[in-house]
């Protein structure tokens, strides 16, 4: 006899580390299995495809460098967004802050290209961070002063920031030498970040920032206040924390890091400013920051893996001649499982049979799944 069953998702009391790890590994295995079905549908051998994906990300020194270049903006943006998220300030304005940071850095690159390289680069870094910080400060100020919804405001400011860059590219900053092509002039060599071990120096900046943000969040008073505010505004008030000031400082930092990403991408990767400067990093970083549970060292690992997924994805396009959309579906499937597994880390399912009189030989209800 089939009994009607109700399913209760129940919050687990405390997810143990072992269990959490096994759920996550299980999710990756399931993701690979599900992707295999899709790959089979494309009439390809899944194992081949997976091997090539790994090769595409880490197969040669060149590809490793490419993966790292992809990882740099992700790491720094995730760090920035992570600070805001720790305070439960939902800064989804990374895109806009990157664009505006890139814009400010570009201003100096284009107008003061003759300055000595170290000074020009320093000016660009400061300008990028300040501009990104101020861009983020606007929604933070509204929130601290009037309690506006930062999710909406940061999101809306993305459009303003990116459209501003579009306007510059098609309008006043359009390079007359580009023969009518809507493009901003390339930076002079002085405005391009130097390389170290074959990769632009952004990787070193990213590593230093991982350490700095880790220390800030765990060993400074401000970092502690940020965490307290994130846990409970009431407790923060009770402890005498200056909430408005702390929100403004933390978000200035958050936006400043995103602005720095804009500067690095414009200077080292694109050598100019363009609408594509952000590459969606401001949104992707939300995923990586969450996956890393907002911990700076874990952000580093997650961002590199994520960059590898992107690089491997684009590599299989060329090797197997599959369309870009197919590669993106594969990335989507893997992400879906990994993100979805977080739910199973926190909840377990209990199946309860809905019957009033029961068979004594049945297994007791409340079997744990997941």
């Amino acid at each position, binding site marked *: 006899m089939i009994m009607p069953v*109700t399913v209760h998702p129940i919050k*687990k*009391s*405390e997810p143990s580390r072992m269990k959490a790890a096994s759920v996550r590994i299980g999710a990756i295995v399931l993701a690979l299995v599900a992707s295999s079905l899709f790959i089979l549908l494309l009439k390809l051998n899944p194992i081949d495809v997976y091997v090539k994906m790994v090769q595409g990300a880490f197969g040669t020194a060149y590809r490793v460098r490419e993966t790292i270049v992809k990882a740099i903006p992700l790491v720094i943006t995730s760090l920035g967004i992570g600070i805001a998220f720790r305070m439960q300030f939902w800064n989804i304005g990374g895109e806009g802050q990157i664009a505006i940071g890139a814009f400010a850095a570009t201003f100096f690159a284009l107008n003061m290209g003759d300055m000595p390289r170290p000074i020009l680069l320093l000016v660009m870094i400061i300008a990028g961070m300040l501009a990104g910080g101020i861009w983020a400060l606007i929604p933070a100020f509204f929130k601290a002063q009037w309690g506006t919804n930062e999710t909406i405001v940061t999101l809306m400011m993305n459009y303003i920031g990116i459209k501003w860059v579009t306007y510059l590219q098609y309008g006043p900053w359009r390079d007359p030498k580009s023969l009518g092509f809507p493009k901003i002039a390339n930076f002079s060599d002085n405005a391009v970040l130097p390389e170290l071990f074959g990769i632009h120096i952004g990787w070193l900046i990213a590593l230093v920032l991982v350490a700095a943000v880790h220390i800030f969040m765990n*060993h*400074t*008073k*401000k970092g*502690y206040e940020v*965490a*307290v505010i994130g*846990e*409970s505004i*009431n*407790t923060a*008030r*009770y*402890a*005498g*924390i*200056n909430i408005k000031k702390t929100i403004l400082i933390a978000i200035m930092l958050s936006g400043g890091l995103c602005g720095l990403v804009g500067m690095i991408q414009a200077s080292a990767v694109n050598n100019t400013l363009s609408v594509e400067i952000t590459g969606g990093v401001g949104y992707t970083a939300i995923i990586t920051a969450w996956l890393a549970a907002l911990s700076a060292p874990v952000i580093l690992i997650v961002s590199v893996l994520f960059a590898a997924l992107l690089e491997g994805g684009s590599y299989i396009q060329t090797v197997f001649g599959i369309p870009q959309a197919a590669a993106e579906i594969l990335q989507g499937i893997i992400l879906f499982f990994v993100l979805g597994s977080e739910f199973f880390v926190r909840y377990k399912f*209990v199946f*309860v*049979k*809905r*019957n*009033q*009189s*029961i068979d004594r030989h049945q297994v*007791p*209800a*409340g079997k744990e799944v997941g």
Partner: protein
Amino acid sequence: MENNYISMKNINKSFGKVVANKNINLAVRMGEIHALLGENGAGKSTLMNMLSGVYTPDSGSIFVKGKEVRFASPKDAIEAGIGMIYQHFKLIEVLTAKENIILGQKNSFFLNQKELSEKIREMSVRFGLDIDPDKKVYNMSVGEKQTLEILKVLYRGAEILILDEPTAVLTPQETEKLFKIMNRMKEEGCAVVFITHKMNEVMEVADRITVLRKGETVRTVEKETTNPKHLTELMMGCPVDLSIKRIETEKSKVAMEVRNLSALNSEGVKVLKDMNFNIYSGEILGVAGIAGSGQKELCEAIAGLYPVKQGEIIFEEENLVGKSPADIIAKGISLSFIPEDRLGMGLVASMDIVNNMVLKLYQRQKGIFINRKPAEQKSVEIIERLSIQTPGIKHPVRMLSGGNIQKVLLGRELDSKPQVLITAYPVRGLDVNSCYTIYDLLNEEKQKGVAVLYIGEDLDVLLELCDRIMVVCAGEITGIVDARNITKEEIGLMMVGAVNTLQKKEVGGYDNAGNCTSD
């Protein structure tokens, strides 16, 4: 199995690694009031939540009228005639009593208003429930809301009523009324299960008592064969002294002076009305009042967390009104407010004990970095001094039991060596032993010359522990009396504003109680 209406056999339930119920047996007969007695964390609520279908047992069986049942949801339980009244009412404020009763019921599309009102009236009379079907819930006093909850459950066909600490929110007069209703239900052949940890109530109203300790049934006893001392011993597993000491100290200087203090809430309603009182060093000033009479606002106003409309709070010849919370903390005024969820203010739930100690320490440190060493040392100290049960100082406080959470909070506040200690509901939901630890701590502070403002729920405790009691009603002080020569009933009348010893006149009658709690 005789005339057992419900019997629960060998019930087991664990949450993760925590065993909440272990082989529990319980039998409830028709027409009895059955008290379920136990310390906090003894498993009373877990057991009742299984009986009302909120949780399902890991193993064991439940019989209703001799037939085994398995509930998948509270709906199944109510169909079997079991209804639960929670401590926090599940009513919709903007609807009337009648609308709340029929909410979520399977009705035909059109309601027969007349028939419905008739049925409600008939049930009200039968059980002695005094309810106006057309009164909106927001106009009701706490007692009325509780009565409505009971009526709602009875309307849905419950023959067994489970009440989870029903008297915690009531005045002595309302408690009396509730007991009358419970007795009336008993006469009608229903059964009442009543969760509590108040001994005097058990002795007054229960027929049989089941004592739980650490998730196990200790014993079920008849009331006639037991006494409070015996029950406490069963509950605790060891003999205990139940008297609270009031340490007599010399009345000394005024520590804090509150003058004409008024405050408005966000809707512009006066929540504190022209309050005037002093707190002396070396005394415990108790505050009695129905929940929501301005206690929270008063605490927060003193701590600089609530905007003050007018008036002064004088401490060391300085007015505290307008100073920042950080300044007030620095002056040696400490607030430990235990809200209903026990965590909301004062502690950061997901942080460990060390990081919670840091909360009141770090602002005194120099530089931009936090030094956690002193906090670690202090954590170890308070764990030892207050015998806090924790796996370690790095354990998140959220994972501790309620009593231990409160000890962490109070321990930290006492550690800051305050001159004025404001403590609201410090024993809220604590087991007997922890309560006494906390009373002892407060007495210790008093002996040191600290001025203690104690906001409490249990009038018996206020009467035994405090030197003076200040009674508040709807944000107004209705009396400041000597705790040594006043009765519970007199305080009860001041709590509802029926008597105001400050204005020396009678204001309205008890029937106006409803107006008093409106907030």
